[in-house]
């Protein structure tokens, strides 16, 4: 915050947010940035100002279509990419590297940055955008069920709609739809090449067969004594190496009654 707005805030001390906002009338920076990206992206699509570059990952090469600030399309299958460019964009982008965006995409894939910050989602419905933004909040190395994503997107009943949104994710790897699995923690489908590819992407992020099996056989909620919090089994905050430190619960109420707080990362309830 700059000195000027600090001074303004000091002048308005003692007033609540409604008063401050009413006299100030400023858009939130998040909203202003998001709309800016959306408009810039829409205009880039309309004026055919989109480009591509490839990223080499341990699981193969992925192609990113971008407008120099946001990523519009990602694909790991070049034949499907050609078709998507033709039908979703209506033109074939040319090659153009973007050092800044390449670096940002690498950070997203390494889990050091949230993918929704660099994804163009402007052509999607508000519900679809919420689903992908919720998915982008799943940490690197963690997994979550479809119903968790639906709930986090603000529509707990829309589990199927969340699933079909993820199946059509325009920017896989950037928005990590591979981290969303069935309620019984079995992997489920993956549009970028089926369950085997989903598994190899999760393994690239540190998931092991041993941990996967542990998650699938774990109780519905797992509490930890050292943090006094309870989590979903797919949470990266859980350290399953010391079983003495863990306690399972079938119902969240029981965990709460036993004095455990819900984990703020995996938000089990």
């Amino acid at each position, binding site marked *: 915050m700059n000195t*000027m*707005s600090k*001074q*303004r805030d000091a*002048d*308005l001390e*003692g*007033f*609540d*947010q*409604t*008063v401050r*906002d*009413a*006299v*100030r*009338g*400023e*858009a*939130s920076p998040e*909203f*202003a940035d998001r*709309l*800016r990206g*959306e*408009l*810039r*992206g*829409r*205009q*880039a699509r*309309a*004026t055919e*100002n989109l480009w591509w570059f490839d990223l080499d990952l341990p699981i193969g090469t992925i192609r990113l279509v971008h*407008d120099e600030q946001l990523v519009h399309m990602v694909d790991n299958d070049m034949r499907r990419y050609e078709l998507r460019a033709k039908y979703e964009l209506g033109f074939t982008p040319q090659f153009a590297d973007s050092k800044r965006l390449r670096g940002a995409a690498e950070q997203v894939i390494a889990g050091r940055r949230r993918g929704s910050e660099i994804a163009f989602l402007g052509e999607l419905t508000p519900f679809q955008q919420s689903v992908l933004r919720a998915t982008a909040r799943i940490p690197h190395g963690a997994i979550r069920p479809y119903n968790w994503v639906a709930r986090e997107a603000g529509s707990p009943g829309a589990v199927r709609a969340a699933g079909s949104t993820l199946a059509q994710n325009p920017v896989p790897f950037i928005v990590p739809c591979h981290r969303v699995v069935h309620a019984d923690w079995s992997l489920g489908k993956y549009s970028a090449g089926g369950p085997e590819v989903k598994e190899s992407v999760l393994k690239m992020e540190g998931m092991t067969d041993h941990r996967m099996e542990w998650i699938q056989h774990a109780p519905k909620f797992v509490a930890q004594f050292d943090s006094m919090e309870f989590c979903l089994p797919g949470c990266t905050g859980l350290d399953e190496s010391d079983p003495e430190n863990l306690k399972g619960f079938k119902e969240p109420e029981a965990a709460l009654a036993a004095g455990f707080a819900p984990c703020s990362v995996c938000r089990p309830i």
Partner: protein
Amino acid sequence: MDELALITAARNSPDAFAMLYDRTQPAVYRFALSLAGDHSGAEDLTSECYRRALTNLPRYEHRGKPFEAWLFTIVRNLARDKGRRSGREIPLMDHDEPIDEPITLELERTERRGVVQLAVKRLPEVQRRVVVLRFGHEWSVRQVADELEKSEAAVKQLTYRAVNRLRELLEEAGYEHDV
């Protein structure tokens, strides 16, 4: 770059359109907020306004008015359309004109913002101008001082009085602050 050149460039360049957006967004948002009454409504109006502006930019004709005036017209039409669809008129709040009527609004949650705007309108002329310029138009103390031909100290003093008067007016109106 002058505005007309920027508008022409924005028809083919995403960066130029983004620049046009950066220049106009604070004013458009503030205008949308005055019509919608809350931030979620203002965000909807602002987003839709620029989406339409993007689509209709090729048909935009410059007739000597600032580009913002065209955007304001889009916002006004959107707000009217929205009001018609939801079956109620949206009151036009423009705190550049003073009024004297007492505040007798019911303190419904959705009307809280309206009460604040009415309170701003009831401030004495010079105090109201200070509030609108300092907080609404985000001017610095220096800029407000120049505009009102007063010293910076006088503007600070006026801000202090205006804020206190606003507090009293809100209390009279039964406004309860959120904690």
